């Protein structure tokens, strides 16, 4: 591509990325700071791992992380099933009754302010409990249902766009050769959209793991998630342990994203070369 590199654009990119990354880098750096004041560098005793050790002994955070992990895993798996079905339906069946409503229902959760979704889900659970006795109280189940409702919308988008970019002729050919629709789905479609399903699972996991607002509305006593504990601590100001938590989160996310994009680009390349 012959394109004259514009200094203006390069400067914008540099400032933009600095804006995105300086806060993240500062959290990482100060996670090694010995001082309890967090942002005042204690040169005499730093860098230190003492806050890492203290985080690993913080029962409150560990318990909350365990609850978050359970919710996130169930949520991601459930969202992937619902979102794949929805994405497949939207990409392959261009006409069915209620398609417009369905499309609206799958895009609305992406932009809906979380306070509204959270409030409405809680009121539903309360009304259901009064009417049929389920769910009895709120906790992990209600939180997972809440997370699935908005996570599946993201999975739907990811799966739908992957399906839109590949030719449905492959599926039609298999059907012409006598494969039943269900077999076509499992033998042809599923392997092709697998990268989208994988990234959808990870996205749903992350959305759930990070969610504060919907969890706060739909959780019950004794089921505080990690973001809920972090929020209550952060409201009181900075805490060295939260910097450690942030550093660990960023490290895991970075490794995961690089791994997945490497894997996707590799499978993409082998698909192209075999074609």
């Amino acid at each position, binding site marked *: 591509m012959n394109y004259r590199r514009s200094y203006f654009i390069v400067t914008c*990119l540099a400032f933009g990325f600095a804006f995105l990354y300086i806060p993240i880098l500062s959290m990482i750096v100060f996670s090694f700071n010995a001082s309890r004041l967090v942002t005042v560098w204690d040169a005499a005793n730093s860098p230190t791992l003492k806050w890492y050790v203290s985080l690993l002994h913080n029962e409150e955070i560990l318990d909350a992380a365990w609850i978050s992990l359970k919710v996130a895993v169930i949520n991601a798996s459930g969202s992937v099933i619902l979102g794949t079905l929805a994405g497949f339906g939207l990409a392959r*069946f261009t006409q069915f009754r209620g398609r417009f409503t369905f499309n609206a*229902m799958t895009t609305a959760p992406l932009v809906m302010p979380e306070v509204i979704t959270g409030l409405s889900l809680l009121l539903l659970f309360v009304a259901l409990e009064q009417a049929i006795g389920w769910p009895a109280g709120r906790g992990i189940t209600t939180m997972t249902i809440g997370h699935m409702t908005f996570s*599946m919308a993201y999975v739907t988008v990811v799966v739908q766009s992957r399906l839109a970019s590949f030719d449905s002729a492959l599926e039609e050919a298999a059907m012409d050769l006598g494969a039943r629709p269900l077999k076509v789905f499992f033998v042809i479609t599923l392997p092709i959209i697998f990268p989208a399903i994988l990234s959808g699972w990870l996205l749903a996991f992350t959305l759930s793991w990070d969610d504060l607002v919907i969890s706060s509305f739909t959780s019950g006593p004794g089921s505080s998630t990690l973001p809920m504990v972090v929020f209550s601590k952060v409201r009181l100001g900075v805490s060295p342990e939260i910097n450690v938590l942030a550093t660990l989160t960023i490290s895991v996310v970075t490794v995961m*994203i690089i791994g997945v994009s490497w894997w996707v680009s590799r499978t993409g390349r082998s698909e192209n070369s075999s074609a």
Partner: protein
Amino acid sequence: MVALPYLWLLLFFVVPFVIVLKISFSDVDLAIPPYKPLLEWVGKNSLAIHLNFNNYAFLFTDSLYVDALLNSIKVAFISTIFCLLIGYPMAYGIARSETRTRNLLLLLVILPFWTSLLLRVYAWIGLLKANGVINNILIWLGLIHEPLTLLYTPFAMYIGIVYSYLPFMILPLYANLEKMDWQLLEAAEDLGCRPYQAFYKITLPLSRNGMLAGSMLVFIPAVGEFVIPALLGGPNALMIGRVLWDEFFSNRAWPVASAVAILLLVILVPFMMWYQSVQARESAGAR
């Protein structure tokens, strides 16, 4: 095949709104749950409906709610403009770089998007507070002698919102610009257009859908944002999402909170429909 997700969304996304609407018309009650039923059997065969518009009337008599709503729209609008101003050149730069650099830059945009919003907002507390990083650097440079009050101000809230939503602006813009035929620009320049004229006449109109999609993805959730004003905005940051949260959790005024939610929804639904039509146009154009 779509029946399962369809039913799921009906039950857990659409029905809840009907319930919110219902509760927004009921009376506050000192009970569990804290509202009175809307429908009640009176005697044997007659059903009484207690439709109560007081919650809505209350929203318009106490200036708190209208002020919060207007302020939220203002904050979301200004933040969207800033995201567009920062995000557009970035998306443009990414779309025009070579494949290898482009993938790396995209990865750098996606990474913060995957990292917890809460933790990224928290990072700004460390940067902005009185003995935080920015003040320490400015004092060390000798530019100021007393720390500036940066945290718990509207400024901090804007920074937080622009920072958190920037990837939502860059990604749809990039997806749009990436499809652009750059030869159009060369043709325009060959015909005597200056680069900025070519940009203004070709690139900008062609990227309209990308700009709209990105702006909606920032504006709509930002209007109802709770976490950022709660952490960075200080006690006076009047945002409707926060008002709703406080009515619900602190005052236990579920009917009032529901009325706030319905009001907010009525304002945001046109934007959501706009977003959906932009998306539909964008995917139709791709085919």
